[in-house]
């Protein structure tokens, strides 16, 4: 497997990979921001070319690395191709009046729902791995990690939605 990265002045950069099988794959990052994916099958003369936008390139990249990420407005789901049963969901929630003044330990978030609060964003300040003594204010954004059931339980039991 041979790989090289080549500068193409005036155009961009090219990364080439010669696979063990004898095919050739190349990615060209053009200065204009677009990307091209070249595929040359073993024994053929002319390559096939796909044009990818930066977003499409990132998507292909994350698919190829094996961590498939789907992003929605409030949530991200991560699945690893080697562990297809394992789906980790990271979801954000807005703390309303009903949570103000209460702390994580009192609410028993983990015990009652199974989900874990991994971060809280408050007016530009971020608290990562907040302790059980951490008290919420109205307007906080909570970041939770867990399976779908656990997050649903959190929504029902703790948030009251």
């Amino acid at each position, binding site marked *: 497997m041979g790989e090289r990265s*080549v*500068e*193409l*002045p*005036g*155009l961009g950069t*090219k990364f*080439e990979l010669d696979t063990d099988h004898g095919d*050739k794959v*190349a990615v*060209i990052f*053009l*200065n204009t921001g677009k990307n*091209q994916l*070249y595929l*040359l099958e073993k024994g053929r003369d*002319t*390559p096939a*070319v796909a044009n990818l936008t930066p977003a499409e390139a990132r998507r292909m990249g994350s698919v190829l690395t094996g961590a498939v990420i789907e992003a929605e407005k409030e949530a991200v789901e991560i699945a690893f191709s080697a562990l297809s049963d394992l789906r980790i969901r990271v979801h954000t929630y807005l703390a309303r009046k009903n949570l103000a003044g209460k702390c994580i330990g009192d609410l028993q978030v983990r015990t009652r729902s199974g989900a874990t609060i991994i971060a809280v964003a408050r007016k530009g300040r971020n608290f990562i791995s907040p302790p059980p003594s951490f008290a919420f204010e109205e307007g906080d954004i909570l970041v939770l990690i867990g399976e779908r059931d656990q997050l649903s339980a959190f929504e029902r039991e703790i948030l009251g939605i």
Partner: protein
Amino acid sequence: MDSLAFALFLCLILVLAARKLSIPPIPLYIVAGLIAGVSGLRLVQGDTISSYFGHLGLIFLLFSSGLEMKPGRFLAQGSRLILSGLIDLNVNLLLGFFAALALGFSPFDAFVIGSAFFDTSSAISLASLIENRRLLSSESETIIWLMLIEDLIMVFLIFLVSAEMENPALLTLKIVSVVVMIVLLVRLIRDPLINVLKRDDYIPTLLTFSAVICASAFAMALNVPEAVPLIILGATLARTDLATLQRITAPFRDVFLVILFFFFGATIPLSAEVSLFAVGAISLFAIISKVGAGVLIGRLLHHSNQSGVEIGIYTIARGEFAVALAAIYGSASVSTMVALMVIITSIAGSLICRYGDRLRSMASRGFPQ
């Protein structure tokens, strides 16, 4: 001013059509200028405004070439690449020069034509490589680096053409001092410069635009070829914030170049001295000389004639610097010759590249091995 408005509007339509049809727009601008201008329908006239804008095209082109010049780059690519640049230069400049002399041009005019002969249009060549999906081949890498070396050599040729009159010793002294001044200045203000370029208002743009115009004015005041301060400025500023400078320079360069191409065509009084035969002969030589130089380079770098032909056909289209050179330094007959050669070679070049495979398979069917 209405000439300019008409020209720009027309060029806009042409480039949209050209993109749709996947053909290079540069010959279209020149042809449109020829048709609309003094040798055709006389709808537009060149004036000081349009020629100033065209001149801005040249200086931004020189500056943006300077931005690409990192001295270490060429050395890293090895001596064989530099050798190919020299092969390209010798074959094409000499062939163009002697062909022009044979057709009756004066030595100076013949040199301008020879330089135009040498200058492949990087824009058309790179666009063809992308369009025809050739970027995977090692020949395409050679072509891309060759374009860069050509720019460097072309600057030198422009310098030679524009430096005709001065006393060489005085000129060298002035050039060396200009270079030293610019290098020292940029080094002195390097950090505040980088900070200004990081801003996201219009100041970086104003700074870049002013720097380029000032460099040109500086050159004119000292009577030194503009290429010198513009390239040096580009090369030194490239070490500050290259991406920002490239982003700012590109629109100015591209728009002013369109004006240059159109009014180049519009202001050429199609010289009756230049016969159709002369134009045809020069264009044919132009195609042959690039393919020939390409084959030599292909044998040197890729050890294959076929690679050489590939390199040759992708460098047939002549371009930006040739037009700029002829527009500013050429007489009417030189401009006529260069304009028609650029038009013919850019169209021929892009057709040959696009249909090259079909030509090759037709040829191999016709000559069974």
